[in-house]
């Protein structure tokens, strides 16, 4: 026994010396050989069944959920660092999955939304490298919704509370619905939309967002612009991003079938460090794509050098919101500096693909699953023109495989 204790201390000393001796030696850390790159993909497989599975490549091979993948339910995803988060709606669980260097993914933990915010985590946001900010409210929130900050490291709730959102007791049928937001310079800027339950129509008078003091999450202020009439930051699409300089870009959707009344959709900017819409900036994507298409911008991902990729839905091909399940969506390349649009020559597909595309190594990846046809992950090169894309990973199941999330596994 005594010998064992002595051996233990000798071993402990050697290990400790090794750890402390290289603690501040960043060169040593960088010498760790990166593992092979893997990716994680979530998609609807059939009916209401959704799976999350790893793949070796986005540019080749085939993903099948036959005998492969974790069951999942819900449409709100977020990835940050080595984690993928999903809001499981039937179980009201906010689930943390860990992507691993060996290309696997496993559920690590979860938070039950009851008692944290009302209803469920509707708005999922990364506010800094170590913190998530989630918001949730009842459908009839009467101007009160909940928020909670979550520590990434141990996936625990740091603090929570309620915040005020617009509500007019004289117009009780008009409700503000939470969208996505971001934190900059001590402010939390939140998108969302107004909906009138009695007229069953979106309420759009210009474009509005909410600003709160952060981290206090109080002192609400409504900011607005009249550059277009629509709603910004829809909650489960990728509707807000920022450029190299830290300027923020909100997708404003003005479609008659999507958070607007058939106006001009596009991109609004909030400059770094400010809490107002940039009065000089509106990128009118609807007009640039061709007014006859009635294109409504649904989401964007910023790639770099002013280039973003996004998806529009052609509302001239739609007769109701249901038609978003038909081939009405098109990938577009947006130059946020010159405000020009390149309509990519990729096939049309349902709009579902827009939920969480990926920008990785200066390329843009999204799933295109045309109805009744083969489905693939496509890779887009921002340097090229309308044909600068290639088919990549095939999706077993074809047109039913609506990709929800593409995320890179860590390699270290």
């Amino acid at each position, binding site marked *: 026994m005594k010998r064992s204790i002595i051996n233990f201390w000798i071993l402990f000393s050697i290990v400790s010396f090794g750890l402390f001796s290289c603690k501040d030696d960043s060169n040593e850390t960088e010498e760790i050989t990166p593992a092979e790159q893997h990716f994680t993909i979530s998609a609807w497989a059939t009916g209401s069944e959704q799976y999350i599975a790893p793949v070796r490549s986005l540019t080749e091979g085939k993903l099948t*959920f036959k005998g492969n*993948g974790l069951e999942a339910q819900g449409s709100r995803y977020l990835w940050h660092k080595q984690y993928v988060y999903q809001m499981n709606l039937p179980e009201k669980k906010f689930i943390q999955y860990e992507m691993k260097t060996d290309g696997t993914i496993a559920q690590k933990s979860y938070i039950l939304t009851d008692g944290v915010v009302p209803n469920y985590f509707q708005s999922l946001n990364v506010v800094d490298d170590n913190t998530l900010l989630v918001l949730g409210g009842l459908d009839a929130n009467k101007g009160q919704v909940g928020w909670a900050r979550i520590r990434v490291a141990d996936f625990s709730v740091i603090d929570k509370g309620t915040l005020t959102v617009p509500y007019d007791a004289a117009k009780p049928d008009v409700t503000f619905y939470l969208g996505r937001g971001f934190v900059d310079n001590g402010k939390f800027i939140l998108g969302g939309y107004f909906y009138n339950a009695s007229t069953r129509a979106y309420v759009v008078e210009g474009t509005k967002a909410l600003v709160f003091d952060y981290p206090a999450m109080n002192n609400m202020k409504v900011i607005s612009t009249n550059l277009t009439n629509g709603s910004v930051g829809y909650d489960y699409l990728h509707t807000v991003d920022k450029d190299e300089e830290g300027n923020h870009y909100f997708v404003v959707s003005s479609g008659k079938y999507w958070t607007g009344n058939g106006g001009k959709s596009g991109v609004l900017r909030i400059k770094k460090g400010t809490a107002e819409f940039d009065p000089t900036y509106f990128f009118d994507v609807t007009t640039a794509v061709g007014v006859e298409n009635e294109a409504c911008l649904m989401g964007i991902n910023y790639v770099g050098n002013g280039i973003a990729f996004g998806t529009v839905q052609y509302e001239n091909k739609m007769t*109701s*919101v249901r038609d978003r399940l038909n081939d009405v969506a098109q990938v577009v390349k947006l130059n946020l500096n010159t405000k020009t649009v390149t309509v990519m020559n990729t096939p049309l597909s349902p709009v579902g693909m827009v939920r969480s595309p990926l920008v990785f190594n200066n390329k843009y990846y999204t799933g295109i699953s045309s109805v009744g*046809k083969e489905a693939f992950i496509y890779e887009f090169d921002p340097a090229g023109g309308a044909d600068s894309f290639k088919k990549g990973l095939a999706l077993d199941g074809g047109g039913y495989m609506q990709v929800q999330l593409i995320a890179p596994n860590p390699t270290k």
Partner: protein
Amino acid sequence: MYGVLNRLEAQTTDTSSRKYNWAQTIIGRTAGELNGIRAQKSEYQFEDRNAMLIANSSYALNPNHTLAASFSYNGTNRTGSDALATAEWTIPFREPQHVNRHVAALSYQTMFWDEKLTSMVFVKNFGYTARTNVYNYNAGQQKELIPYLSESNKWGAGFGSKYRINTGTLVKLSFENTTRMPDGVELLGNGNTILNAPGLRLERSSNFNIGISQSFRTEQDKWSYELGFFFRNTRDLIWLGEGDLYGTSRYENIDKLRSMGGDFSVRYARKKWLEINGAVTYQDVRNRQRFISNGAVNLVYNDRMKNMPSLMANGEVRLKYPSAFGGHGGLSFYAGTDYVQGFFLSWPSLGNRSTKKKIPTQFLQNTGLTYTMLQNSMNVSLECRNIFDRQVYDNFLLQKPGRFISLNIRYFLHN
């Protein structure tokens, strides 16, 4: 001829405003509980008026040939209202809905060879009309209430025959092409957790069954068994779908299935003091839809049916003491077991099997003691079910009771 008029009134009150934890502390606000993340307060009430009529007649052409006709009608009218009128799920229920069904049948039965061979051919007509509502997108920006009228008329036919080889052996054979029409709950929902299903189609199937039963008797012992096989092709199986993202469910159609399987049951009795019986059922139900409605390849083609067990069995041993306590009563004791092999909630072939949601294998043991007295007018039963307190489920993660003991006293005023 037989007729029934029913009237049913029901109300679902869902007006919770607060959520509590187990310590009765308020942990949050809510607006009702039903419908998951789309919950809104509701005081939904509905009234079903149901009329049922059954008429049978037969005519013996001669001792061995009989012609029979039957007609059945079942009509349900539902009206509903919601005083709070906010919950979206109640919107389709507030407008009148109805479902009317009828089955008319004509059969011809023959008996030959001293009634050893009995055969029947029949033809049926199935009529169905339903008026329902759906709250969905139509041709506008937002959801709206859309009336939905369904009408259908199908024909079916079949043949059945049984042949008694000797006093202890019977062989049966049947074939039927039939239709099953949605009933009230399937089409109109239950008023809370099951939503209406306006697009529900009639279930059609071709069924083939063959079976044999035999019994053997000695002075003290009696054996019997029954063995049957079935083959079934089903289109548009009517099926309660799993809960959706909002925590409610509705009946849906599974396009094309093929089922094969068999049942085997055996019974043994010795004098009047011992009975042993057991039964096992195996079914192989598979999805045979190659392409889904949008033309894509069906990923789960030839997959076993989700959320459905393949193997089930039960058995029981019963000991009887007919003249216990000096002949004043009868005492019986039984020990039994039930077995259901585990199965997956979703399509078995999709996803990693080690992490899939599964209804686990259930293997239960039960026992009981019954005392009968006063010339069978009264009996007292003490029963223990799930003796070993195993975790069992009625549906996915919907727990059934663990071990429980019950005392049942029954008395017949007239026996």
